[in-house]
């Protein structure tokens, strides 16, 4: 298969008439610059395609290099709180640009270049051998001073391991994460955002899935005034398997944005992207943009992406945009689905008519909506952890609703 694709000759497109040879139309890979230099990227405006859903005026502080406050507490442990065996996982801090830092992929937009140039060092978490329990990287903020954090999560070939990254507290964070998984490894990486009110989080992840490796990448964003996480991925060889799951819950006035970019650059790789969100209240705003690029070098690609949004109360806005660029006709599949639905009045009445209160009914439906996705994770400790996080979030909503009732009386 590999030798076969080397024989493909790609015609050069005429930039004045790109549609003359569709297969040679400029792809997003060609359009997107990669650079460590902030000056190579224009300051984001809503006129730029990548920023048209983003309230750029609410995150201007992330557009110029800054001095990080260094007030984040970062702890690495096993998920049960015990300390890590350094034979399993090595944890170290290296200078920016010292391998693996900066080697997995260069920054790809203004905010990621700013993060790169603002962060003082890179936290490297290197999984060396099979893990018996997930590694937990816990990041807790306590102020809204600007901070920058750069991480590299790397695994050896053929290892099985799970890494969970938790964000909590209050922060204004520019975060860069480079992830590279070894050949034939089976790895899961889960990012949880449980930010307090007033927090902002601009994340950029650059993900490289090893040849023959499977990566389950999960993102759970349950709070933050402005959260924008862009995740760009590619494969390191044939038979890679990428599974990206996302869950988000958006409160009034919050902007929660996830952008996935899956690049099929090698033959016979598989990708699945499933993001689900619930929006509650006025001016709750979610954005999901799912890009998938299937390059001419990737015959046998099997890709699918899906986004579902559940609008619980009126006044929320969900943007959902799948983009497929298919530059190879010899593929298994490239599908997408996207929907925005309202919490159904008939469902609510049915549950209420059985004695279940409105608050409890919403909770039940949202829990079910996310539960289907969490079940798919298949790792008991992580699925349980996520359901706990979601229950905590739903319980918070309940307190708030109860509070409203108290205030109204």
């Amino acid at each position, binding site marked *: 298969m590999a030798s076969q694709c080397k024989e493909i000759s790609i015609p050069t497109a005429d930039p004045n008439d790109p549609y003359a040879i569709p297969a040679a139309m400029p792809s997003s890979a060609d359009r997107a610059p990669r650079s460590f230099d902030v000056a190579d990227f224009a300051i984001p405006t809503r006129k730029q395609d990548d920023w048209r859903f983003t309230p750029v005026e609410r995150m201007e502080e992330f557009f110029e290099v800054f001095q990080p406050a260094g007030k984040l507490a970062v702890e690495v442990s096993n998920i049960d709180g015990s300390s890590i065996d350094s034979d399993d996982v090595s944890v170290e801090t290296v200078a920016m640009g010292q391998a693996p830092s900066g080697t997995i992929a260069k920054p790809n937009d203004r905010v990621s270049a700013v993060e790169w140039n603002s962060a003082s060092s890179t936290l490297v978490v290197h999984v060396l051998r099979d893990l018996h329990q997930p590694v937990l990287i816990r990041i807790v903020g306590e102020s809204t001073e600007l901070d920058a954090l750069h991480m590299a999560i790397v695994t050896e070939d053929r290892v099985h391991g799970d890494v969970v990254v938790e964000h909590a507290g209050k922060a204004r964070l520019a975060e860069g994460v480079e992830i590279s998984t070894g050949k034939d490894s089976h790895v899961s990486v889960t990012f949880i955002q449980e930010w307090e009110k007033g927090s902002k989080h601009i994340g950029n992840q650059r993900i490289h899935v090893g040849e023959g490796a499977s990566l389950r990448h999960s993102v759970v964003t349950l709070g933050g005034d402005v959260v924008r996480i862009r995740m760009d991925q590619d494969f390191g060889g044939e038979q890679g398997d990428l599974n990206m799951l996302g869950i988000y819950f958006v409160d009034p006035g919050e902007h929660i944005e996830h952008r996935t970019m899956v690049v099929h650059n090698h033959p016979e790789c598989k990708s699945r992207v499933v993001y689900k969100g619930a929006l509650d209240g006025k001016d709750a705003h979610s954005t999901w943009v799912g890009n998938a690029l299937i390059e001419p070098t990737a015959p046998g690609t099997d890709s699918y992406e899906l986004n579902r949004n559940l609008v619980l109360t009126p006044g929320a806005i969900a943007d959902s945009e799948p983009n497929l660029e298919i530059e190879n006709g010899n593929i298994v599949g490239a599908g997408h689905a996207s929907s925005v639905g309202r919490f*159904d*009045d*008939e*469902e609510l*009445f*049915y*549950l*209420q*008519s*059985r*004695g*279940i*209160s*409105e608050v*409890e009914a919403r909770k*039940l*439906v949202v*829990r*079910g*909506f996310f*539960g*289907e996705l969490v079940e798919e994770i298949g790792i008991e400790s992580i699925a349980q952890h996520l359901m706990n996080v979601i229950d905590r979030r739903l319980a918070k909503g309940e307190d708030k609703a109860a509070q409203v009732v108290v205030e109204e009386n």
Partner: protein
Amino acid sequence: MATLEIKDLYASVETKEGRKQILKGVNLTVNSGETHAVMGPNGSGKSTLAYTLAGHPKYEVDSGQALLDGQDILTMTPDERAKAGLFLAMQYPVEVPGVSMTNFLRTAKTAVDGKAPAIRTWAKELNESMHKLRMDPKFATRSVNEGFSGGEKKRAEVLQLELLKPKFAILDETDSGLDVDALRIVSEGVNRAKENTGLGIMMVTHYTRILKYIKPDIVHVFADGHFVKTGGPELADELEENGYDEYLPEGADSESALA
């Protein structure tokens, strides 16, 4: 001994053509242990009566009361009505994706009783009730009503009736869409609930078929938004024979979009 007393109830619904009065002075008293059959032509407002009592937001009460042991349920939210002891078995039960039957039933039972059921007895009771209704145990793990056939949905409604143990049940065309066997199984479930708890039943139906299995004490004819005639079980046979024509206003169409 409980009483459900509907007093001079008027209710309307918002339609494209404006507000339309559907219930026009409904009066009815149902006591524990009594089974009332409410029969009438399409569009007479039988289902509206059922949903208005249960508190569906589409229907607006203009005046009147529905007293459950002296408490007006019409001022309550639908969940409060359920907690007060009212149950509506719906003609078209709603699908709730992602919520398993077990989770739903336990949540409902906890809400209605005000405390969580004891795990062991609850599981036993659930299994027994499902078994008696000839329901596959797999139903418990499926999402509420999702992908259920018409007959399965009706069995699930009666399952809830048996488990939640209300004081009064409104059965809205529970017989529609059932084959003979399913009709018998569902009817047996309703009869069991009545025997076990002294349930009072208001059974809305077009046909006398279900009355062979669930014997009514009192039969009412409902037409043009209120009760027009009340009698014993023999009234049902008379209706089966002669239809509803004599109860319809001159020139009225028995088919209506508001059925």
